[in-house]
């Protein structure tokens, strides 16, 4: 349940507690009525909305009567009457809605008084009540509903839950005042949840944070003593802590829609006040974030929406003149991205007046004219976040309320967020706010670079790759380091170099594959240690300008380390590195759609000056080989490559193979066989819409396309592959690599599969992940031998216990160790698990525990073998 009002425990007695409850509840209800009414005005025929409003107003009225608050009750009653008329078919006019909204405002004013003085203020509301009644009567035609209006204000009608149906209200029986409280449909829902004071939750969160730190300290100590008696109980403590933390975090999560509730009303009033027509569209209201963050982001959001309505959207006449729809639109959207929530507030208005901002900046002495002239449009836009900047020639009552954009920015930055804006003249302005989901605890991977340790938020880490001289080698395309990973080239950033901690060095290192938005890149670090739950402490104000870090934290061993902000690192990638989109084999993410038409191409030269290109996805590797290693046999060029003889082909006869030095080649691989295409020079990687404009009849050339402004030959790889592989090559068997251990991961939730597979891979295992017990049984019997099974317990159809029994029953799979994953590790479940043959139990969120369990089980396996 939402907690929007905090009265901080000023009321102590039971009656006072009831009163406090009333205030909180009513505050919430009123906000909802506001929003619903605005919606209703737009959709007057929507009976559901009306039903909601009716119910809310009715509840307010009921509670007021119960607590003997006559003013409030009378107001609510009159408003309810008018709402009743709407339901009976009275046309919904702006006038009527405005009147109901004013009534709501009056109720709010009285509530404010109530909160401070704990009694209703003196005064009367005859004016409003009279107008409400008059409107209601106007539609009355004298025949209907007189009973209702004449009824004493304290009499409450019992309503049907399905108020949206056409049944008139007077069909339901009038009941005595005493029965009214139990008639609300909301009561049944209410008994499922309790209200908890926000302070209590905050204290709980602080305590859990401390507990996490202490747990980490204990783990650190035990890590140093191999055979400690503490190991098992500590593992249990660790599990419980993880669950507790998860649970407490959950209690604090609220949908961002709670912070938006007031906005439809604000926009509606503004449109009336400014004489503009404005639609407010809201997307992603269900996106959840920590309540502390939610509270802090409320005001900046409201301010930005006001700003859009006031400065952004033009008047209907101006809009028509500009060829736009008369009605302006403000779009508010929210979504999760990594450990952040992205909120966008966009209008389709006139955009920022850059010239006026330039002039103002000079006026205010923020920059000289020469400096202004040198600035980009984006930089000019950012001036509006400077103190004292308000571009509206006249400060209006709407956004000129003494808070400027500088305050908005300061408020957002205070919670570790950023605000950015894009504006285009005549098209609109969009503010993008990025804030962390929670200010509290995240899981982080500890990495080392240049002798320093850093924490990487686990949420943005996709996987870890050990790079160096082995399977994954870091290659270079024109000085840009890349890593080939499953047929994709991954741009790399050397953390050490980026943080100016030293020069990059070749040799063994780790690549932390990281995702930020749609961008996937690798962060090269010297070492990777363990994951740890860290309590994020905000950055010192003196260090906040460093984009590479998002905060600091204290580790279990007491030392302070910096938390890497992947978003800041992505900026370091800059434009020098071609962006390689993250369209993994499993359907590209939705935000990739825009770039789907673009194909990354590798541009090279061979034989002639005319550029040639080949889709990057076909190339498996770029190599430079020493010319002395090229052998000629039977008129073919060959090179020893990864324990095989790899044939080298020329793109065309003009392209020569170098006699000395390093020869660049493109390596294409197919079913374990590789061939090298000899080129003169690798020029670039570009992303282009691949449209072959002129087809070619030359073998090996698909045709010509315009790539970065020059006509480019698109190479047909399919032509070269058969040329490379003769029969003698086919017979050559690929050397089988030593098999690494295979873990079968069973979980019905794709989220957990995605979260855990990289972790298991990083621990050095091969992972087969499946979504059900049935698939798991099939996989266990397939040709790939399974060394270990990790399974979820709660799964539909066949649960983890049943899966374990089934595996044990089959002699072929009976010996495979099984680790159970569970959201709840009760001693009962552990007992049952033992019986069916689980070797270990790990809590779902306990990543460290899982890796430890894996190591232990595979060590046993090793001894057994």
């Amino acid at each position: 349940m939402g907690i929007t009002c905090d009265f901080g425990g000023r009321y102590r007695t039971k009656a006072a507690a009831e009163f406090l409850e009333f205030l909180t509840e009513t505050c919430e209800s009123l906000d909802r009525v506001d929003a619903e009414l605005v919606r209703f005005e737009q959709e007057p025929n929507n009976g559901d909305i009306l039903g909601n409003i009716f119910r809310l107003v009715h509840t307010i009225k009921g509670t007021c009567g119960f607590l003997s608050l006559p003013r409030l009750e009378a107001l609510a009653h009159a408003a309810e009457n008018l709402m009743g008329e709407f339901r009976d078919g009275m046309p919904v006019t702006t006038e009527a809605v405005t009147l109901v909204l004013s009534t709501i405002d009056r109720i709010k004013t009285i509530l404010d008084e109530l909160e401070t003085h704990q009694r209703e203020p003196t005064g009367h509301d005859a004016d409003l009540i009279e107008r409400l009644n008059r409107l209601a009567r106007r539609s009355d035609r004298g025949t209907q509903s007189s009973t209702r209006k004449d009824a004493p204000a304290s009499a409450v009608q019992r309503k049907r839950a399905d108020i949206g149906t056409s049944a008139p209200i007077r069909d339901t029986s009038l009941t005595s005042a005493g029965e009214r409280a139990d008639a609300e449909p909301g009561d049944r829902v209410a008994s499922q949840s309790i209200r908890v004071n926000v302070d209590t939750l905050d204290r709980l969160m602080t305590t859990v944070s401390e507990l996490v730190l202490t747990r980490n300290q204990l783990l650190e100590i035990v890590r140093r003593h191999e055979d400690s008696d503490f190991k098992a109980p500590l593992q249990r403590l660790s599990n419980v802590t993880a669950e507790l933390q998860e649970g407490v975090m959950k209690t604090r999560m609220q949908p961002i829609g709670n912070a938006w509730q007031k906005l439809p009303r604000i926009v509606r009033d503004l449109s009336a006040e400014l004489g503009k027509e404005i639609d407010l569209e809201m997307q992603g209201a269900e996106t959840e974030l920590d309540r502390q963050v939610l509270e802090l982001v409320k005001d900046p959001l409201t301010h930005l929406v006001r700003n859009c309505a006031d400065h952004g959207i033009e008047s209907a006449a101006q809009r028509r003149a500009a060829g736009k729809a008369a009605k302006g639109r403000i779009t508010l959207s929210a979504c999760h991205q990594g450990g952040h929530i992205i909120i966008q507030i966009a209008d389709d208005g006139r955009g920022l007046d850059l010239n006026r901002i330039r002039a103002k900046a000079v006026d205010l002495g923020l920059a000289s004219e020469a400096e202004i002239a040198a600035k980009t449009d984006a930089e000019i836009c950012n001036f509006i976040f400077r103190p004292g900047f308000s571009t509206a020639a006249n400060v209006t009552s709407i956004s000129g309320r003494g808070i400027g954009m500088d305050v908005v920015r300061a408020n957002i930055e205070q919670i570790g967020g950023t605000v950015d804006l894009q504006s285009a003249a005549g098209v609109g302005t969009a503010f993008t706010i990025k804030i962390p989901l929670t200010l509290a605890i995240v899981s982080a991977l500890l990495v080392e670079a240049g002798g320093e340790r850093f924490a990487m938020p686990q949420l943005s880490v996709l996987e870890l790759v050990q790079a160096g001289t082995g399977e994954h080698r870091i290659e270079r395309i024109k000085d840009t380091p890349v890593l080939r990973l499953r047929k994709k080239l991954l741009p790399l950033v050397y953390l050490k170099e980026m943080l100016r901690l030293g020069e990059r060095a070749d040799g063994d290192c780790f690549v932390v594959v990281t995702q930020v938005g749609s961008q996937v890149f690798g962060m090269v670090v010297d070492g990777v240690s363990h994951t740890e739950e860290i309590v994020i402490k905000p950055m010192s104000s003196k260090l906040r300008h460093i984009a590479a870090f998002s905060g600091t934290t204290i580790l279990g061993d007491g030392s302070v380390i910096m938390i890497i902000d992947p978003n800041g690192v992505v900026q370091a990638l800059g434009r020098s590195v071609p962006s390689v989109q993250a369209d993994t084999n499993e359907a590209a993410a939705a935000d990739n759609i825009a770039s789907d038409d673009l194909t990354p191409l590798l541009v090279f030269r061979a034989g002639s000056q005319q550029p040639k290109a080949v889709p990057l996805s076909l190339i498996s590797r770029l190599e430079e080989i020493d010319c002395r290693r090229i052998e000629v046999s039977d008129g073919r060029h060959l090179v020893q490559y990864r324990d095989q003889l790899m044939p080298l082909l020329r793109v065309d006869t003009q392209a020569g193979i170098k006699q000395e030095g390093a020869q660049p080649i493109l390596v294409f691989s197919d079913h374990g066989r590789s061939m090298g295409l000899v080129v003169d020079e690798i020029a670039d990687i570009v992303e282009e819409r691949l449209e072959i404009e002129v087809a070619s009849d030359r073998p090996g050339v698909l045709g010509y396309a315009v790539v970065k402004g020059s006509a480019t030959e698109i190479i047909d790889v399919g032509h070269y592959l058969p040329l490379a592989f003769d029969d003698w090559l086919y017979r050559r068997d690929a050397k089988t690599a030593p098999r690494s251990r295979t873990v079968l991961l069973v979980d019905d939730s794709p989220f957990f599969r995605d979260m855990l597979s990289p972790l298991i891979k990083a621990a050095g295992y091969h992972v087969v992940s499946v979504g059900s017990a049935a698939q798991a049984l099939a996989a266990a019997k397939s040709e790939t031998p399974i060394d270990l099974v990790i399974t979820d317990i709660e799964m539909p159809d066949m649960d983890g216990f049943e899966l374990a029994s089934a595996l044990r029953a089959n002699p072929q799979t009976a010996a495979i160790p099984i680790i159970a994953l569970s959201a709840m590790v009760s001693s009962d479940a552990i007992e049952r698990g033992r019986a069916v043959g689980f070797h270990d139990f790990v809590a779902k969120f306990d990543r460290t525990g899982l890796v430890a369990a894996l190591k232990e089980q595979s060590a046993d396996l090793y001894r057994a073998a």
Partner: protein
Amino acid sequence: MHDAADHTEFVTFTTAGQLFGVPIGRVQDVFKPSRITRVPLAGAEIAGVLNLRGRIVTMVDLRRRLDLERGASDRPPIAIGIEARGESFGLLVDAIGEVLKLPNAERGAVPVNLDRKLAAVSAGVYRLDGHLLVVLDIDRVLDLRAEGVAA
């Protein structure tokens, strides 16, 4: 006995041979910094961050802050803990001196020939016998002008 209102108590310390004073009210504690984590990409005057009883303290190296680069101190470093706008800072200095109670009336204006960088953070001087004690304005010392660079 002096009247408290006429006098200010200063925590004194030396850095690069210069005697400094900070009003005692601004000093939280004096501590020996251990395990300072350096912060890459931070300004030279930031020595790093450390954990002081569960609080994260940003360490400012006074020598570098004031460009008093005349060789490093041969003594183990010592720091003055300061709270400013809800954040904890530590000022790395060479050595802590005694607490001096000095009459406000004797505080002189900053001499014109004082080093410009030093003058910018000074709130006056006391001429003690043979020594010049520079009173530091802590807020100005901590004004690192780091903001504005943020993009």
